[in-house]
């Protein structure tokens, strides 16, 4: 990190695309319903990432983040992502 750089924090949510079978979500749904915890029609299990970036500005940090999301954190055949900035 250089003197001109700032810290930006992001959360990235990755979830399976519609139409991709999610056996883990299905097992969780069954457990909820069997245990009478609620009447749940569908569960999708995803992933949450917290990334702390050092960058010259927000625009550059977001540009890098989008590349990280599409190149590594997700496989576009089966997953989609969204991200948001967090203060802490």
């Amino acid at each position, binding site marked *: 990190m250089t003197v001109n750089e700032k810290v930006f924090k992001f959360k990235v949510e990755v979830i399976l695309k519609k*139409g*991709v*079978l999610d*056996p*883990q979500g299905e*097992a969780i749904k069954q457990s909820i319903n069997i245990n009478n915890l609620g009447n749940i029609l569908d569960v999708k299990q995803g992933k949450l990432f917290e990334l702390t970036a050092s960058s010259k500005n927000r625009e550059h940090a977001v540009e890098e983040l989008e590349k990280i999301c599409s190149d*590594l*954190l997700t*496989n576009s*055949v*089966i997953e989609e992502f969204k991200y948001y900035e967090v203060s802490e």
Partner: protein
Amino acid sequence: MFPEFDVKMIWHKETTLPKVDLVVLPGGFSYGDYLRCGAIAAKSPIMKAVKNFYEIGGFIIGICNGFQILTETKILPGALIPNTNQKFICKDQDLVVENNKTFFTSNFEHNRTISIPIAHHDGQYFLNDSEIEELEQNEGIVFKYRDNPNGSIKDIAGVCSKNKRVIGMMPHPERAVDKDLGSVSGLTMFESLITNFLKK
């Protein structure tokens, strides 16, 4: 049984391949299979060279984790996700030879049923509808499961690239090369390769 071949092990941190006829990405686990199976291995330094090798028409086979790595690098289409029953499945599995017009499968009869072991947790092949159609049109489906064990779309067990020079499969042909192992179906794949390389 086989003429003499040189085999070279290539470390994942290497950046170049020696002069080879065939690259084999074996099964196992890579980088703990964190994130997604094969995802981090697909970014390892050697994979740039493997991708290059594919682009110049090199022959590649990816078995199990190797198949997952080939889909993560987009050398092969699709993705491999957890088995529908959420279990690690390890057993002999009947497959049907769908395409015997590849370097890897030419010694098989078309539509023949063979037995090759599977050993995976994330073997469910997925591809969206339009891409499945394209794969079928390109004769990209090489093996199908009989009695689909893992929920793979269209019972797909193995696929090949458009140029038919790269194949990826979840079953382990290298574990079916001796009668004492229960099957010699896998041996036919390696014999096909040798026959075709010697003809080249």
